[in-house]
């Protein structure tokens, strides 16, 4: 009996140490538990997915849980169930927009005015990527290799901040394209995060079809305008190439 009690006590102490060692508060422990639930469900769901990339688990929120929800969410289980039953989802695991617009004083990050179009050698890395008609997924290898290059660069240069600008061609409606541009920018952001870029350093904007790069009305112009552009800020002293 005594032997059993010692064993039982040791087990309880061990378990409590295990659960308390990484937690900061009861709230974050709960978030971790919740996230674990999400992870388990996602794992089982992913067995049936066609997109092999989505089996990877890179998004920070998937491991740590959201720091604090700033909105009341829909039941995620319901959405995941729809996703699993209806789609071979091509979107990388959802990465919530993690930060507000960078504010110089509060976060020591640059303001939007500091972000510029990449120039010189960076222009060859931060190339504009293009989408198919009414699509938010990058499908051509050229665009995907651009994402690889950018994520590699961001992993090496931790001080870089990136804005992704989602754009559409003129054929869709103005209002719908504003939303679609958001989706495109978010998709690119999620891809970068999956490949290891710091999600807290990536922001998105959608301009819909407001700012065409080519104002012509032909297939070539439309293809150019369905794009995600990059604007960057980085302290020159920290650049590692």
């Amino acid at each position: 009996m005594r032997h059993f009690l010692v064993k039982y006590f040791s087990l309880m102490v061990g378990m409590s140490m295990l659960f308390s060692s990484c937690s900061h508060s009861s709230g974050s422990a709960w978030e971790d538990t919740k996230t674990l639930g999400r992870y388990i469900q996602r794992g089982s769901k992913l067995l049936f997915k066609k997109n092999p990339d989505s089996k990877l688990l890179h998004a920070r929120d998937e491991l740590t849980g959201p720091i604090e929800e700033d909105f009341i969410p829909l039941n995620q289980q319901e959405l995941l169930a729809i996703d699993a039953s209806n789609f071979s989802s091509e979107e990388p695991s959802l990465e919530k927009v993690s930060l507000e617009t960078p504010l110089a004083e509060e976060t020591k990050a640059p303001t939007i005015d500091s972000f510029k179009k990449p120039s010189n050698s960076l222009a060859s890395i931060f190339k504009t990527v293009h989408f198919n008609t009414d699509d938010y997924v990058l499908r051509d290898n050229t665009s995907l290799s651009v994402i690889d290059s950018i994520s590699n660069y961001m992993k090496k240069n931790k001080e870089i901040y990136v804005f992704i600008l989602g754009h559409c061609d003129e054929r869709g409606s103005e209002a719908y394209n504003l939303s679609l541009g958001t989706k495109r920018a978010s998709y690119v952001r999620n891809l970068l995060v999956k490949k290891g870029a710091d999600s807290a350093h990536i922001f998105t904007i959608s301009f819909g079809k407001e700012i065409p790069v080519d104002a012509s009305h032909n297939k070539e112009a439309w293809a150019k305008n369905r794009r995600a552009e990059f604007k960057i800020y980085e302290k020159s002293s920290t650049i590692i190439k």
Partner: protein
Amino acid sequence: MFKLTSLISFIYLFTFSNSFAEELVVHLNVSQPQVNVYIEELINIKEGKKQEYLQALEDVLRFDIDNSARMKVCAKHLQIETLLKTKSFKELQSHLLWKELQVKYLIQIHIENKICTPTLCSIDYGYQKELKKFELEGSLLKDRKIMHQIADLVHKTLFNLDGIASSEILYAMQTKANKENQELKYNSQIWVCDYDGYNARALTQEESYCITPCFGPNKKGHSREFFYVCYDRGPSKIYISSLNDFGEGKPFIKLRGNQLLPTLSKDRSKIAFISDASGRADLFIQAIHPEKGLLGKPIQAYSFPSSVQASPSFSPDGKKIAFVSDKEKSPKIYVIETPSYSSSKKHLPEALCISKKNKENICPSWSPDGKKIAYSSMTEGVRQIWVYDFENKEEKQLTFGKFHKENPCWAPSSLHIVFNTADTDSSDIYLINLIDKVPIKITSGPGKKHYPAW
């Protein structure tokens, strides 16, 4: 049914017209055919001669009455004008010309020493009513507004409903950026104009990009609020300002990421918008307290895997929201119940699709009377404005012809719609009513005018 209501109106008029000899208490049935109105030529009594200025004012009034959807202005008639200059209305009331022209009401406007006095006369019953005295300022831009007020007074007197002539329309105008080295090649500001396109003025002065404005409800004694999306801080955020704030907009919603396409419920208790805070372009709701501002956190109202949500619009009672989703590949109009704050975890609401005729349906706008939803729909290769009627569950095409037409928005009358064309050759604001169905261009000049809001 129509005959019965006409008979009741007639009996009512016949019985009471004598006792109300000086009062026009008649409220015409709004479903009746348009009423023919004659507007007497505006003349300055003291000077006794017609001026260009008065003609311009008269044109404003004619436009207002003619586009009220419930009245039609008769063309100027030389004989009538001559008779009106020499005889009083009482003397002319039984003249056969009125019947010949099917005129039911006469509007006379006397101007003396800058005081303008409109009088409404009923041809059938012979009575007349002086509406109100106005003081003209001598500036056409300001005095136009007096003509709008007169038109609305006539409308109110005859139909017991507010007219639209004194209302204003918000829109966004995109122009090319002035500075050559500016990162963005374009600039966009929020503008406001009278419902006929005049008196246009910029409301925002941001260096940044501002789009998709919407009005808050009228509050007595307060300058009217409006909301819009601004890219000042990078991601698009919803800003609040008022017509007298001269560009001093402030961020309104506290939520990370992009906020787009805001719309307010009629009682100003909720704002709906699109946000990517969840990683998708989802529909969100934020509760608002009339005095204190935001109430609690935003609610994720609708999301669907691999889909884009856009363009929310509240029903007048705020209990439902129409919006766009491409969850079935092609964008369609869906209606959901507005979620409440009662529980912390929200279930995905059932979305009812109401646009079934055409493939690509976008930009829904719920009419203030709750009976219809206007939206834009791809029709034989061109986006046209359609109207869904909840009573008979029918979709009807309202506009035709070339140029894509988008972003319809109802007037408070639920009879008029403002929309914009969206082509390179034409990006202007148009006004249309459900009776005449003839679009009238109300903006002109350089710049892309779009996202109109009434």
